[in-house]
């Protein structure tokens, strides 16, 4: 347990310090959100209607772009091999790393959401709905994305390949995240149903992600 806590603390520290790059995700999120009105036009009612979708897409892309950092740096300096050879099960170590990554790179996205909601003309209830769905949904993005990150690091290929592999897997999260936000704002449907399914997706990815990532690391590292 202490080993896992130490791993989480170490990963968060590295991510937040100079060279870590966790906060670049937030900057990217901000930039994408600012770009949207240029493409759509400064039509405030339209932006308010598209707001949840824009925020979800921005968060999805931002979390995708930071995924590269999950294993790459550790692979380059050899600490990933140490983690893989250590006594802690690799599945648990992967889960700890993903949790640390979510805390360092995912939570700032959620914290930034209210400010971005203002830019998109979302009112307080809409913003809090989006932030709540992001809070529940981004762990699923991190934990399924971890599979792609593990594949990419064992193959020494990142970037586009990672995106192509991970994005189709995140479609359900996107559907239910946006659906729950829309339901909270306008929808005739209840907020609870898509929200609970979103929670379920996160829980499933919490189980599947570490095992699949550990399997691909175990088979792929040499």
């Amino acid at each position, binding site marked *: 347990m202490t080993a896992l806590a130490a791993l989480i603390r170490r990963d968060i520290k590295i991510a937040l310090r100079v060279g870590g790059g966790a906060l670049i995700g937030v900057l990217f999120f901000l930039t994408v959100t600012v770009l949207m009105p240029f493409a759509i036009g400064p039509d405030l009612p339209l932006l308010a209607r598209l707001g949840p979708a824009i925020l979800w897409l921005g968060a999805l892309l931002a979390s995708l772009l930071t995924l590269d950092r999950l294993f790459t740096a550790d692979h380059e300096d050899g600490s990933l091999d140490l983690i893989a050879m250590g006594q802690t099960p690799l599945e648990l170590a992967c889960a700890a790393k993903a949790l640390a990554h979510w805390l360092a790179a995912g939570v700032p996205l959620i914290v930034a959401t209210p400010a971005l909601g203002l830019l998109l003309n979302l009112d307080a209830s809409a913003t809090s709905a989006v932030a709540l769905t992001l809070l529940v949904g981004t762990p699923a993005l991190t934990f399924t994305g971890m*599979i792609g990150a593990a594949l990419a690091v064992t193959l020494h290929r990142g970037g586009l390949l990672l995106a192509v592999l991970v994005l189709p897997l995140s479609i359900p999260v996107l559907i239910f995240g946006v659906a729950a936000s829309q339901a909270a704002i306008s929808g005739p449907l209840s907020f609870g149903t898509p929200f609970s399914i979103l929670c379920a997706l996160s829980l499933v990815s919490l189980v599947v992600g570490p095992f699949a990532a550990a399997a691909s690391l175990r088979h792929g590292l040499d």
Partner: protein
Amino acid sequence: MTLIDLANPSKFLTLTARVLPWLAGATAILLLIGLYQAAMAPDDYQQGATVKIMFVHVPNAWLAMFVWGVMSMAALGTLVWRHPLADVAAKAAAPIGAAFTFLALVTGSLWGRPMWGTYWEWDARLTSVLILFLMYLGLMALWRAVEDPSRAARAAAVLTLVGALNLPIIKFSVDWWNTLHQPASVLRMGGPSLDKAFLIPLLVMAVGFSLLFVTLHIAAMRNEILRRRVRSLQMMQASQQAA
């Protein structure tokens, strides 16, 4: 003769060399019979002659999913038993599966134009098949991204299994998404009560297309084995020249 014996690529090559012509012949005969029956089948009272697209469309759509199942079995073979032919089977199946998925999309789109008035509709089934197609392409990209075949095989196996877990979830969520956005859904194919005049040609075509997959798959596996042999010979030659 068990699966373990087949693990020897040379044995696999000699065995399949004998089986392949028969398989190809049976495929050709079944597809000819199926196409003839399909052409002779009566027109649908609503859809007219366009219903005949179904005889090509449905087997393709069925195989699109079936091939991912075959790849998942091969992925288990790769990860659990390290079966040497499982890698080859998984790699050879991916482009064939992608081709079936693509054909299902194209025939569906051609069928949709006269029936629904549009080539593309964000219908739940179409969308999930499109996502399946994207995942096939991603898998092929993964195979092509790595030079070492056995390393690529293990990565692709993990992705295939994750995809097999995820495909039902995607299917479910797309269904949900679609019913949310379009309460008045587009019309669905024939329904469960398909007339015998349609059912029998459809089944013949389905078996014919399945045999076509088996034939193509075995041929592609043979090619892949030979390609790997050529590669290792070339490597050997290169290292001899260097020495």
